[in-house]
């Protein structure tokens, strides 16, 4: 039973609860013990580092300092979410590379009686640990219900392979780790060239049209290649592709129905767990149809509660767009 | 030649083994008595410095001087005997290259004195140290001053012949005595000044009976925890044997007895620095290419400085370690 320190991150407690549930479900068969860090705090996601470095890195480093206190033997800190993994890795990397930053951050941490010496912890993503520590053979042994017949588009997102400080991934543009894992689970993995293209991140809040464009490329790319569903390794990608797929369809007048699941959910299925243990069914774009290909009965999603009837009012004019005219349909039909 | 030629032997900073080696030539000592008039040999007969001072210059035909120049008394007598002797021979390793006493050159001479009077077995509660000059009613009495760096004989006076060995082998001493006797009888020529006599001009391996193959050193071992193959060269068994660099003449006495040569016969002909030769020879045949591997093998040499300069430090290019030179420079300041 090899022990790892876990930094769950905010999404696993809210929008990506399914990721957390499916992760717990596969821990036992894979003989991994994840010990959550006491009193961890937000990792600053994508914005904070862009606004103000020192407080952002101090915020992140606080987690590292807390993790060091719970080390006793385990020296790997696992982050299931790509954004958390990247921020924690960046903090450890730049505190080492730029001693001035390191000392300032440690001054900040000292206020809370904490301190972090860069390099003590090995910050790694969950997928990296599963493939390179647990190993594909060990995973293959646990597969009881191979996902054969299920066409999956492997989507690793852009934060894992770039910037790959410690050269953990096979390639910076076309890494094969997720693909190899899904094949071991028996899935029928499609050749998906957009595996590390960006999902828009928080552009859904800042510039929706750009986000919809990026989401559309990813979903259309998977759909064209006949994928039944997409497997992701990051709650933010899952959220963007799943929650905003409807709005994207509305924006482009398309009708995609591409379920977006976490790779841990697929692993759970392959290990023979039932869907509700894995949080399957909570996704907005239902995976019910897709999973029929492997004979998995997903309980019908509860009828969406009738939306509060909007009081009748005057029809709203469509939003004025930046270039003053309604966008022309340049996206794919 | 009516009166027998005069013969002298002196014992400076050394262990006296060379004197015993001379006696060790058994009945040949009678030849010495027969052919020489021993005028000055402190350990064997009673003669005073003033007797030697009274002699004319160059009146002693043959002087065997053994021992390094440790204090100013040694220096004084060395100069005196040089004046009085026709042939001055640096006899034995101490006179030639400093030998074991020369190892004092690794430390500060004042510390040596301090240690000498403070060993566990020394009872010196109120820290009394010898003073080289002391007033007594009869006047000022002196004891010799220790020199900061032990010097070899030829660093103090001009030496005619060198006879290495610690001690020189008795058969070699006997041979030298025969040679001088024959020269006296006009039957032989003295070799050119500065030659090394009583030794071979190759190295110990020449006389060693052990079989020798291409040298590759995989590790250095300590002899006491090894099962030694009696026939094979010791160096090839990992024992750091100085034979390859040590002058021949002793018939490889030690390797024949199963012990490694430690270099008492000094450097081979024309070699400037004995230790450097061994450093180069041993290092060149180490079986490793990466620095870590090389260092790992070298860790087997517990005391490299001792291994390479046990007998030759005072006669080497560096002559002494840093502590001794520091003592010398401060010593100079004190005296002046």
């Amino acid at each position: 039973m090899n022990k790892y320190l876990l930094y769950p991150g905010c999404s696993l407690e809210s929008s990506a609860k399914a990721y957390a549930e499916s992760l717990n479900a596969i821990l036992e068969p894979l003989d991994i013990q994840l010990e959550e860090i006491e009193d961890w705090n937000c990792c600053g996601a994508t914005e904070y580092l862009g606004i103000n470095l020192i407080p952002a890195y101090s915020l992140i480093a606080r987690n590292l300092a807390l993790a060091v206190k719970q080390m006793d033997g385990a020296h790997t800190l696992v982050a299931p979410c790509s954004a958390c993994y990247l921020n924690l890795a960046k903090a450890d990397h730049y505190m080492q590379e730029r001693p001035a930053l390191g000392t300032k951050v440690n001054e900040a941490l000292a206020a809370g009686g904490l301190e972090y010496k860069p390099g003590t912890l090995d910050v790694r993503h969950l997928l990296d640990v599963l493939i390179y520590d647990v190993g594909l053979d060990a995973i293959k042994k646990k597969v009881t219900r191979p996902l054969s017949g299920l066409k999956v588009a492997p989507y690793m997102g852009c934060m894992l392979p770039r910037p790959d400080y410690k050269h953990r991934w096979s390639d910076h543009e076309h890494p094969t780790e997720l693909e190899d894992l899904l094949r071991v689970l028996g899935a029928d993995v499609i050749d998906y060239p957009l595996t590390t293209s960006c999902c828009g991140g928080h552009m859904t809040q800042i510039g929706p049209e750009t986000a919809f464009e990026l989401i559309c490329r990813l979903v259309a790319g998977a759909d064209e290649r006949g994928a039944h569903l997409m497997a992701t390794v990051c709650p933010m990608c899952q959220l963007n592709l799943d929650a905003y797929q409807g709005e994207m369809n509305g924006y482009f007048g398309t009708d995609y129905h591409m379920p977006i699941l976490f790779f841990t959910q697929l692993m759970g299925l392959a290990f023979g767990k039932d869907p509700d243990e894995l949080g399957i069914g909570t996704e907005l774009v239902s995976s019910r149809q897709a999973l029929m290909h492997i004979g998995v009965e997903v309980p019908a999603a509860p009828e969406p509660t009738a939306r509060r009837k909007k009081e009748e009012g005057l029809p709203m004019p469509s939003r004025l767009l930046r270039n003053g005219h309604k966008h022309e349909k340049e996206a794919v039909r | 030649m009516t009166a027998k030629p005069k013969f002298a032997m002196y014992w400076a900073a050394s262990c006296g083994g060379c004197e015993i080696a001379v006696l060790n030539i058994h009945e040949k000592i009678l030849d010495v008595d027969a052919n020489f008039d021993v005028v000055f040999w402190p350990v064997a007969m009673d003669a005073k410095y003033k007797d030697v001072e009274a002699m004319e210059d160059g009146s002693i035909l043959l002087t065997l001087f053994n021992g390094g120049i440790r204090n100013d008394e040694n220096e004084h007598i060395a100069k005196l005997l040089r004046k009085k002797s026709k042939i001055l021979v640096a006899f034995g390793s101490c006179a030639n290259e400093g030998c074991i006493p020369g190892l004092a050159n690794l430390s500060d001479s004042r510390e040596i004195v301090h240690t000498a009077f403070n060993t566990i077995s020394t009872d010196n509660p109120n820290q009394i140290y010898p003073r080289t000059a002391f007033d007594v009613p009869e006047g000022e009495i002196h004891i010799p001053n220790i020199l900061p760096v032990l010097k070899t004989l030829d660093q103090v006076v001009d030496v005619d012949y060198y006879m290495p060995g610690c001690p020189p082998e008795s058969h070699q001493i006997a041979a030298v005595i025969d040679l001088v006797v024959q020269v006296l009888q006009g039957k032989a020529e003295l070799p050119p000044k500065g030659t090394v006599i009583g030794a071979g001009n190759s190295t110990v391996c020449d006389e060693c009976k052990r079989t020798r193959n291409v040298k590759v050193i995989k590790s250095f071992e300590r002899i006491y925890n090894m099962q030694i193959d009696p026939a094979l060269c010791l160096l090839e068994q990992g024992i750091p044997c100085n034979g390859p660099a040590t002058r021949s003449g002793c018939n490889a006495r030690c390797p024949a007895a199963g012990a490694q040569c430690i270099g008492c016969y000094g450097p081979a002909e024309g070699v400037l620095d004995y230790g450097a030769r061994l450093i180069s020879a041993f290092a060149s045949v180490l079986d490793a290419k990466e620095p870590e591997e090389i260092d790992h093998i070298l860790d087997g040499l517990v005391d490299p400085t001792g291994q390479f300069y046990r007998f030759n430090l005072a006669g080497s290019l560096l002559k002494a370690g840093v502590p001794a030179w520091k003592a010398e420079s401060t010593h100079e300041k004190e005296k002046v």
Partner: protein
Amino acid sequence: MTENFEPTIIGFTCNWCSYRAADLAGTARMKYAPNVRLIRLMCSGRLDPTFVLRALSSGADGVMITGCHPGECHYIEQNYKALRRYLLLKRVLKGLGIEPERVKLIWASAAEGAKFASETTAFVEEIRKLGPLNWGKARDQLPVISEPIQREEVAA
């Protein structure tokens, strides 16, 4: 006294790599510390520890040994012997109380003029920090050279 102490260093180079690196530094007009005086050997394997001891005991404050990178020796593998002798010699120097850092081994290929220049200057600064060796008062037996060396500026 040490701040304007100008160390004197003897440098051994091998004819095929490091000597040509020094020449290349020259043709490229790279500036480096003037304290090293070079001797050309056919190969770093020709370096006899006696040379180093001779230099140190004759007034040098440091010795620089240079040669081809391991594996690139013109005589195939002779620089490995130089490496082995260097490592053993340093241990003996330590035993004699001489700072082993006074002798340094640097690999420089014929194309590495810049490296040769920068390593030389760096080594001179290291020796300057260690101060004069002054072996056996050897230095003051040295004849006084006509005028003391004033240093307008130390080349970078």
